[in-house]
């Protein structure tokens, strides 16, 4: 019996919220590898694979996909519980682009043949996807991207390069935004293509990030051919596809739970170093604690909206801005409160407790940059919510 058939047996949406939460909690607590909990970094594909397959076997790999495509078909309320329990159990971020982006894109914009070809391979772990959006000269100004694809017979021929491609070195496939019409306004001439990473002409170099990890790559395309059937949606409508999926993801990014993990480090440090006796520290600690609680209230407002199946508008960008700003402030306080230890690159032992002061700093930095920097989020809020002029 395949994964899809197993999942179809249970209608999770009909389950009581608490019963569903209990089942998710028990599953995540019992089945997820202990040594991979609460890691301050993403998981590699090798680390991820066993968990990927146990999720797949239970039919729980793709909570956001409809049941007929092998997902759990969770409604927003249940999906949020799923996320909450994932975070609670400290489950690491896998190379999950296939589940989070490719699946929903193909389900919404793709055709039957594409779904049949790609979705089962995502569930089985045979295909691992990475995302080719940013380019060396198209970061915040993504719509200015110049990697181009020209139709030649039955194939698109791609030339150019993509950068900050997370986990490209472990991926079997890449989805790319490419320029297919240079004559029209930037956003109008972009298409969404699927490419096999083994195609001749693709090369990549890994890029070591500021924390010393090889998390992302630059990918080069030199006359790379992909069959024209790998065009998702219509020609020149890639921008709409890329934009359409981001809103709900921003809800997840705005969750207050990630910064909470850094708070645990701060609590441990504060107890070990008797920092709660220092009124200056207590002031700053309290401010951040209350900021985080208030973020929780704001987050809950969007969660409730999603649960009522209301559309989430562009105002949700504020969640990401405030969540990531708060996370960074917290990481910075951790370093300052560590005094001399705040410069230690590795874990330190204080009052018999292991404390990692540096990792939250590195982990929190890219949050204000990726997925549309905080400055871009502010542009979005200014334009679409406050309706300030251009």
């Amino acid at each position: 019996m395949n994964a899809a058939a197993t999942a179809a047996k249970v209608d999770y949406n009909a389950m009581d919220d608490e019963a569903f939460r209990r089942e998710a909690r028990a599953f995540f607590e019992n089945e997820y590898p202990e040594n991979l909990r609460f890691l301050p970094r993403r998981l590699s594909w090798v680390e991820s694979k066993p968990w990927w397959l146990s999720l797949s076997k239970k039919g729980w790999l793709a909570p956001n996909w409809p049941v007929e495509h092998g997902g759990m078909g969770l409604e927003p309320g249940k999906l949020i519980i799923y996320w909450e329990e994932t975070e609670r159990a400290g489950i690491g971020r896998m190379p999950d682009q296939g589940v989070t982006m490719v699946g929903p894109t193909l389900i919404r914009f793709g055709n039957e043949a594409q779904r049949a070809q790609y979705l089962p391979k995502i569930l089985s772990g045979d295909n691992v996807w990475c995302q080719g959006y940013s380019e060396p000269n198209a970061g915040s100004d993504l719509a200015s991207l110049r990697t181009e694809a020209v139709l030649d017979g039955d194939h698109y021929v791609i030339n150019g390069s993509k950068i900050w491609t997370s986990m490209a070195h472990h991926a079997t496939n890449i989805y790319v935004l490419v320029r297919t019409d240079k004559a029209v306004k930037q956003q109008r001439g972009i298409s969404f293509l699927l490419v096999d990473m083994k195609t001749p002409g693709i090369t990549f170099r890994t890029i070591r990030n500021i924390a010393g990890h090889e998390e992302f790559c630059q990918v080069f395309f030199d006359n790379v051919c992909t069959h024209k059937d790998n065009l998702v949606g219509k020609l020149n409508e890639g921008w709409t596809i890329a934009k359409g999926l981001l809103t709900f993801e921003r809800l997840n990014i705005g969750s207050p739970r990630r910064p909470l993990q850094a708070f645990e480090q701060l609590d441990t440090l504060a107890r070990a170093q008797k920092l709660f006796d220092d009124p200056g520290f207590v002031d700053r600690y309290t401010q951040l604690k209350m900021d985080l609680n208030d973020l929780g209230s704001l987050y809950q407002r969007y969660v409730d909206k999603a649960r009522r199946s209301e559309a989430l508008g562009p105002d949700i960008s504020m969640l990401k801005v405030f969540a990531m700003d708060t996370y960074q402030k917290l990481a910075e306080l951790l370093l300052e409160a560590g005094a001399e230890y705040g410069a230690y690159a590795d874990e330190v032992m204080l009052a018999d407790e292991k404390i990692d002061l540096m990792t939250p700093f590195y982990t929190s930095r890219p949050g204000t940059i990726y997925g549309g920097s905080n400055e871009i989020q502010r542009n979005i809020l200014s334009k679409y919510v406050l309706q300030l002029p251009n």
Partner: protein
Amino acid sequence: MAQADLNEHRSMLSNSVTNFARGVDLARVRKLRDTNAECDRAVWTQMAELGWLGVLAPEACGGMGLKLGDMAIVAQGLARALVPEPLTAAAVLAARVLADSNNDTLKSKLLEGLVSGEMLPAVAWQEEAGSLDVNNINVQATPAGDGFRVNGSKRFIMGATSAEGFIVSAKSAHGMQLLWIPRDTAGATVQFDRLADNRQAATLTLANVSVPKTHIINSGDIAAGSLARAIDHASAIIGAELCGIMSRSLEITLEYLKTRVQFGKAIGSFQALQHRAVDLYIQQELSSAVLGDCLAVLDGEPDAKTRSAAASRIKARCADAALLITRQSIQMHGAIGYTEDCDVGLYVKRAMTLAAWLGNGHTHRRRYAKTEILEGAL
């Protein structure tokens, strides 16, 4: 009340406030301000007739017996229009203390009077700046006749300019006493200090003031508990007022950013101002999310610790956000924002008065730290 009824009721309440506030122009507010008055009793009576002074008071006393969530709608709407009448001081702080009284004769006289707009009592509990502790007082009540003789002084009393009397907290051999002291009582003197928004903070000095037994509102732990709850609830509703202040101030400012032209274009097209406006908007939305969340907690009547934490979360966020937004409103208006005629000045001044009353952001964070962080951490 069923949820559907409650929603309908709240939308009616909100409409009545909007209609009223539309009729109140800022000219009246400015005029009152220039005469150092803060309460037009004719307007106060009108507010009573609309039911707003009795939102929280029990139905037995002529009120509606509704929740803080309802009161917040009224307070927020009136604050947007800068209505200076002492709604929160009377209809929340005083009304809550009176509703808890077992002295039925006094309670019905004062609370029914408050609800009908005929009687305006002001709560005089605080003595030390920056303190939220109801027991941190020195006013003494010593037994005399069938009641007490009271000595000492109270500060930071709001809503007192046209009040008929004071609800005073005092220490006695049997714990706290909450006493009704009419304004014209021998030995009671009131002195006023002007606040930023030209409302008045009163200082009440009591020299051998006689209080008969019939004027005892509440005694002992019940008195202290009732006062502490009333202060938390008032702090929360001040948060609602601050939300009204910040939202109107930001609205005026956004309108200005869209219409003021410099360098040949609307200044709202400049990214430096856009991003600042967005940050103000985020603070406004955070405030309103915290207000909604914590009012629901308060309306569930939790234990005292949870209640105070919820009230402090509201007041800390809303006070700081309102100050930030109104001050930046001046900045984004440029020189015109620094003039007497520009309305944003009225909003910044009201924000300052409300932020400082019953604990500013820092005071509330300190209290939150004490019960929610330090007690658990040590």
